[in-house]
């Protein structure tokens, strides 16, 4: 894995398909987006993270030509943002809260949009059936969209985003409001689209676990500015802290607290405030080298096992995207 000059890495030398440089947008006195610069590679999924009002949707709207930036520039598949109509031919978008005409069938809906991309009625019809098949709605092609569940509508929205065989697909909160199974299926679909079509996917989401699960790269925005970007592993690795969390049965909590406090290099042991039943252990001498960290953590687990206290769960704080997100966005807000 080799990071490029913007910090986002590539595998098997995929080509850059979206290049954004110094994009800025201001609403009145508030800077919604500050110097957004990144590169998206073909076949990769890029997660766009940020708290509410961080500038995610504004960034997406600029990159999808719905909104003009105050300054900056971007290119999609070598087409300059000076040609928004050409850009729109190359991108597919599933906006947040996409509305659907209730009186149209799924097939009519996709055929209509296919024709708006200059396909003949016949071509658009064939394309519509192919896409319905791809998103698993082939059996509901003739059903009115008004009768669709939220999950089915999201699938249809993704099919609509793919109607022009785009090089870049923007998905804004695609799993919002879906049940866990629906979320999982949709995420698998997104990953498949990226891999099979070599399409670049930009996935905007609040669900950090899903970003972590399927994204290759991540950009974290806070108050309009990029606070971290790069491959998910790199971003997560950069923020690791000297804290570990362990979960033990309720009956063993008191004994565990006493035992862990007696260990060497342990600075502080407490019940985790955010996660009930978890014990948070902060090490006194945090070492920059990963092997030293692991040794310290292993001694923690070893002590518990030797004391015959069952370890239900264990994780290193900072080892998850959520920790990175919380830390970085908190720093910017401060």
């Amino acid at each position, binding site marked *: 894995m080799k990071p490029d000059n913007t910090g986002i890495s590539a595998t098997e030398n995929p080509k850059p398909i979206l290049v954004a440089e110094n994009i800025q947008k201001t609403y009145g006195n508030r800077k919604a987006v500050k110097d957004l610069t990144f590169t998206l590679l073909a076949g990769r999924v890029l997660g766009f993270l940020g708290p509410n009002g961080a500038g995610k949707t504004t960034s997406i709207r600029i990159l999808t*030509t719905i909104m003009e930036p105050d300054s900056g*520039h971007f290119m999609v598949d070598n087409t300059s943002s000076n040609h928004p109509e050409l850009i729109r031919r190359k991108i597919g978008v599933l906006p947040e809260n996409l509305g659907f005409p209730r*009186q149209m069938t799924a097939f009519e809906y996709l055929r209509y949009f296919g024709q708006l991309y200059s396909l003949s009625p016949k071509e658009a019809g064939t394309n519509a059936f192919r896409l319905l098949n791809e998103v698993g709605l082939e059996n509901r092609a003739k*059903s009115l969209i008004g009768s669709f569940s939220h999950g089915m509508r999201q699938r249809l929205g993704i099919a609509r985003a793919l109607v022009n065989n785009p090089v870049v697909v923007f998905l804004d909160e695609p799993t919002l409001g879906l049940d866990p199974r629906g979320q999982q299926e949709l995420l698998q679909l997104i990953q498949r689209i990226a891999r099979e079509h070599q399409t670049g996917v930009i996935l905007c989401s609040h669900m950090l676990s899903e970003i972590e699960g399927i994204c290759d790269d991540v950009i974290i925005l806070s108050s309009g500015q990029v606070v971290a970007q790069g491959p998910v592993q790199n971003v997560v690795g950069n923020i690791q802290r000297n804290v570990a969390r362990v979960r033990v049965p309720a009956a063993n909590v008191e004994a565990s607290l006493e035992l862990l406090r007696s260990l060497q290099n342990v600075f502080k042991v407490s019940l985790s405030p955010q996660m009930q039943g978890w014990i948070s252990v902060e090490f006194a001498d945090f070492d920059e080298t990963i092997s030293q960290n692991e040794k310290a953590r292993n001694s923690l687990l070893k002590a518990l096992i030797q004391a015959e206290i069952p370890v239900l769960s264990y994780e290193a704080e900072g080892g998850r995207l959520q920790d990175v997100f919380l830390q970085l966005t908190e720093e910017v807000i401060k």
Partner: protein
Amino acid sequence: MNLTSVNEKDAQGMMADRAVPKGHARPAWWLVFTREMADLWIGGKALNMILIYSVLLGVMVYVYSYNSELSLIPPKEMVYEMLKNAMAVSLFIGLVIGADMLSGERERNTLESVLLTPVKRGQIVFGKFLAGISPWPAALIIAIPYLIVISQGDEVLGPAILWGAITGSVLVPAYTGLGMLVSFWSSSNKVSYFVSLGIYILFLVPAQLPGRAQTGAAGQFLQWVNPLAAVNHFLSKHLVNYRTLAEFWTWLISPVVFVVLILGILFFIAGPGLRLEAGRSSKFLKRLWSRSSASIFLAFILLAGASPAMGFQTGNAQAEDLTISIDLDTAVVKSGDKVEFNTVVTNNGSSQSLPLIVAMNIINLNAQGDVVDPEDWSPQRTQYSQPLSPGASVSHAWIINTILDGDYMVYMTLIPAPGSQDTTSHPVASPGIHLTVTPFTRINPGGVLPYAIGGPVIVLIGILVLYRMRRKQIDNG
């Protein structure tokens, strides 16, 4: 990567590699138009509005026919009133549909997906506009049978349909376009509907002004500038008062200027800048002002220069001593019957009389009864005659259309016109006619009931047929 070194040829080439349609694509405006048509007409608001419209026309035609039975309104006036109302409702439908076109799509989150396609904004607006005016032909077709029934064979029917179609085809696009412009600048549908309704009422205001305010120079000018009032005035004069097009064509200037202005702004200024948020950037307002201020100014000058309201005049009168007689003492009739009689005015003096005015008065003898407005009861409220030589007489024929049952006294007043502002004259009263009107009602006045009910029923059947066709289409894929 240096973004400023974009190779446009490469960009075009790569795009061509991506999605290459091989078949014959349809124009985007046509796709948007057909899509909007389906939305409006298949279980959509256009169909519902047209159904309400047909019910309204049915009620109107029934009421007018009932009045016709009572000889309250001659066919010409009924046709004009019917046409005026049909057009007012059609304009309302156009305005409401236009008001929903863009802000409604914004609110339903369906606009963004269309804006994300490579279709030019102007084509989206044009397709939507064409669909927005589609209820007008349907409204006109529905109105024609009602106009035929209510015209009762009068020659006014042909010109009424012709001029109704022409003026409606000017005003409906203008109102629909206006609704779309309001919708373009409205962040919510509620605002769009509210503003559109306000504008609609504003255009109706001149017709609600007191009589003198309407007939004075300023009032006439206001009516002339207002495209709706101007069209109504033109239709009234042309259809009811036998006035020619050559005399009243100037009243069609403001509707034409209005439609050109509205559609110009919609298609050339607002349309190309259609976006997800309401309105356009502040740069746009400057552009709009620079482009439209000159045309608005020019339109105003044109309107002001051509206004026929600039030359209204007044007259004067004088006094004399005369007698007036009536050839009828009493009459017992049913409501709706006509009562005809004659008056004779004689100059018994030794010198020529002043110009003479004979006015009809009808008094309800029942203290609890309604006050009678003779204008409603007779087409000849007043009649005028030239000065009479000594010993000469003049006869006038009168008709009373009895409207309400009751006990009335009809008498005439003879007024010599005063010669100047500082003189007056002595009116002379005629003997009275004791008029007794007995009640008479009909359920099916003029045989119009089948039409009044049939129109909405046919529209309803049309809706059901469309619904079934759509269901079949869905079932058959």
